[in-house]
């Protein structure tokens, strides 16, 4: 009866294993990258982080800022009414 399940079990363990290995390696690689760029980036001319480097922010943001504002007003209102 358990033919397919027993066939799938190693596959499933194996699959979730790889997902973990992959993301753990990605954590390590990302950390290494952050450290290396932090240390050697300036020497390579990569560091001078001025905003001019960044492209103009996407136009869609308007609504979002509204949402943030709203959220903040809520928080403030909540705090104001003890």
């Amino acid at each position: 009866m358990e033919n397919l399940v027993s066939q799938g079990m190693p596959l499933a363990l194996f699959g979730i294993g790889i997902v973990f290995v992959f993301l753990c390696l990605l954590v390590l690689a990302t950390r290494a990258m952050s450290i290396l760029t932090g240390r050697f980036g300036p020497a390579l001319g990569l560091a001078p982080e001025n905003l001019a480097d960044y492209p103009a922010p996407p136009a869609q943001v308007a609504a979002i800022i509204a949402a943030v504002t709203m959220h903040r007003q809520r928080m403030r209102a909540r705090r104001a009414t003890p």
Partner: protein
Amino acid sequence: MEQWRSLWQSTGLYRLDLPQTAMMLICLLLLYLAIRKKFEPLLLLPIAFGGLLANIPGVEIATGDGILRQLYEIGLATSIFPLLIFMGVGALTDFGPLLANPRTMILGAAAQVGIFATLLGALLLSDLGWFDFSLQQAAAIAIIGGADGPTSLYLASVLAPELLGAIAVAAYSYMALVPLIQPPIARALTSPRERAIRMSEQRHVRRIEKILFPLLLLLLTALLVPAAAPLLGMFCFGNLMRESGVVKRLSDTTQNSLVNIVTILLGLAVGSRLAADQFLVPSTLGILLLGLFAFATGTAAGVLMGKLMNRFSRNPINPLIGAAGVSAVPMAARTAHRLGEEADPENFLLMHAMGPNVAGVIGSAVAAGILIRLAA
């Protein structure tokens, strides 16, 4: 006389059968949910409308040379549409929160447990004789647990195109239902005190990190799971266009016109798979059940991993952000945030939840690659 009869017989009134009527009602229900309840309307509205068209009797729309069938052949049978959408998702994704706190990626891995548990679940249902899912079909169903639309569509188009309609409906519906599905599970597995944990503020992320990250991710994919490279490659390409800052024209178009056009065409193409004879089959019921199971187990696994990490971490980790690891961007992150706010009105988890949230996208794409490799 003869002509009148032939005309009467050509009307939908004469030809409409019960299954098609039922499917039209289902599609109208999906439209209601998309419009009134705002259930992932960007995809459910085109899918549901496509489903309506696909169930009109007596005319070729989703069959033969009909337009929905042609869109399906052009964009879904070839996997082109889901991959272009994934490129758009990449261009819309900000990896900042993830880069600020990379270890939260582990939560994005844990939540993929739902995928593989569901794989076993689908195989079990087959073993029990309740359904008759092949390994490929089980894998395509399991990826619903990835809570990521284009990944689900991609895998279904590769492994089980015959189930594409049901998988799409399940994936997008449950993604829309995340604010209902996740809270009871997350609450059951955590104490109020855990949910109130505040997390320390995130560090600033430099531009160079954001530029290098998609390349790093692609490289790792190429080395370890090449089968995930079509998905993650397009995703990283979109993200690199966004972060490089030198192709603003292309990035803007990708985030807007391109992704919108492809979404419309993709939705209609998916809708063509909602024809009654394909959708009203027992397996659809199984897919809906398994999809729910997938979301639930993924959520639970994410939360439990959050608890585990909190125990062994120097900086406190709120286990709620583990629930965001299923992806369902940004719904799951918002749900985690709201649960945190519920326990402590000043707790602001959104940014912290975005890390596992986008890691979940990566995690399920990796899982999709593995499933393609092993099940294909």
